[in-house]
């Protein structure tokens, strides 16, 4: 997994005749258990809700209407923009965005530092960064809750050092959610940037320094543009899962700091019990994510054309 070096071998067609049969299990499993359910979710978002969960098979635009339209207390006024859910979506984008910036600030120097170590120790560094990712996300989020709480180690350390007199309220704030998301997906930022810096040709830096460019100018004007695809990949790998995160906002943000994930969960597992509305919110999240991935694919295609 680490390193990401491309293939050196030839890719033949030894099993050409068997490929349909070899691919069949994967196709069947993924079509039946992922593609079909997602399509069905789209259908559900246009159905009528039944009380206590479930749906009535009757076409309805009510879920999307509820999402975007405010029709007054009795539901009979003309549509004005409903801000409640748009605010939740906007908060999710904002929180995920801040977490992404934070992990870029820590992740880029880390990735760069690791990629400039001697080749034989690099895999070990990468391994050290990846280990926490494989530790259960729930446990990591709980450990962050433990760190941030009022009598937690962070507050204790700050009080002991005399920096603050009374404990800071960190848990159940937007800040805690950002830290939680940052902590959950930080390894995702480091890995693609590391792969990009490892491929970067350092003679370009030397050429820049020969032409009297300062270190930081070289970083900004030469290195950053060269490793941009890796940086974009890292940002997407942090931003996308942060957007739909459920655990960090639920365990660190409390009731006030709802994100899309919590909104969706509430419709299916919580008290709201409005399946079409939950399906519609999921569809809107999915559309957002697919748009981001499409943007990424176009960027990659452009970068490949540029280097090829």
């Amino acid at each position, binding site marked *: 997994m680490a390193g990401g070096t491309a293939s050196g071998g*030839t890719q033949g067609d*030894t099993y050409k005749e068997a490929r349909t049969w070899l*691919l069949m299990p994967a196709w069947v499993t993924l079509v039946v258990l992922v593609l079909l359910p997602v399509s069905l979710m789209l259908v559900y978002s246009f159905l009528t809700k039944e009380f206590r969960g479930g749906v009535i098979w009757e076409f309805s635009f009510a879920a999307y209407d509820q999402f975007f339209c405010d029709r007054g207390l009795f539901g009979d006024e003309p549509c004005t923009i409903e801000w409640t859910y748009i605010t939740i979506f906007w908060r999710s984008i904002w929180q995920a965005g801040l977490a992404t910036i934070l992990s870029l600030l820590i992740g880029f120097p880390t990735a760069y530092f690791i990629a400039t170590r001697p080749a034989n120790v690099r895999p070990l560094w990468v391994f050290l960064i990846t280990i926490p990712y494989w530790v259960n996300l729930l446990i*990591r989020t709980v450990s962050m809750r433990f760190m941030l709480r009022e009598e937690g180690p962070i507050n204790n350390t700050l009080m002991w050092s005399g920096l603050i007199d009374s404990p800071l309220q960190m848990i159940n704030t937007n800040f805690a959610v950002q830290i939680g998301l940052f902590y959950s997906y930080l390894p995702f930022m480091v890995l693609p940037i590391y792969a990009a810096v490892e491929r970067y040709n350092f003679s370009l830096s030397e050429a820049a320094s020969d032409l009297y460019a300062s270190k930081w100018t*070289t970083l900004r004007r030469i290195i950053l543009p060269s490793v941009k695809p890796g940086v974009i990949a890292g940002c997407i790998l942090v931003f996308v899962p942060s957007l739909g995160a459920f655990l960090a906002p639920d365990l660190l943000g409390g009731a006030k700091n709802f994100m899309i994930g919590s909104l*969706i969960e509430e419709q299916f597992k919580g008290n709201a019990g409005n399946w079409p509305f939950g399906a519609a919110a999921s569809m809107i999240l999915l559309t957002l994510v697919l748009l981001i991935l499409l943007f990424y694919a176009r960027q990659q295609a452009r970068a490949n054309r540029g280097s090829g």
Partner: protein
Amino acid sequence: MAARKFDVKAYPGFAQITVLCLLILYVPLMVVMIYSFNASASIVVWEGFSLRWYKDVFVGPESAKFKVAARNSFVIAIIAATVSTTIATFAATAMIRGGRFRLRLVSLGLISLPLMVPEIVTAVATLIFFNSIGFERGLLTILLAHIAFCIPFAYLPIAARMQGIEDTYEQAAMDLYATKRQAFTKILLPLMMPGIISGFLLAFIISLDDFIITNFVKGAGVETLPTAIFGAVKQGIKPNIMAISTMLLAFSIVMVTISYFVSKSGDKK
């Protein structure tokens, strides 16, 4: 490289930030580990080293619940990892050794679909699907969802490994009158083993750790370790949860370390 006045590669502060990054990643886990050995019943004060909470996990009042949850988790993870690794091995063979074909890109997209769709969306969609076909939610629904979700995690190391093996070995075998099946089972599969084991272990951890999808597709009263931990944490973090978390954490780290060294051992040619 020629000797220079200064190192163009190094930037001041980057080493310190790297240390900071590792501290951020590891300190919270270590703190949980340390506090799981706390003798106190409160998570606030430290009263000395004790294995009390580990004992509590195994014989305490909630031990029966955790044992069932742990057994469910491990049974599901073993089956899901086995099935998804098998599916992924076949798919990788077709993708890497199947030549060019029209549906190649579509197949690749399909295989990486669980990675692209946000987990909560997959969870909701799977719940809706099982519900609409009247499939009663329980361990089987968790297992099916996990198999689908684990495929890309098993596929990636397996495909990466196969790309590194030239197909001349199989060609040579077939020149010596081996059938395709023999070339596959006697030549390709043994060479692939490090990738397959690595893929299996990653799929295993992904299944063992999954909370979101499990939470949506599980039946009432059916728990896995993560859902049991989540339920307990909702009532406040207690020391026995820290002991369970530490055990699960240590287990994941051991598995990933094995996976790392297995896939590395095969790299030396």
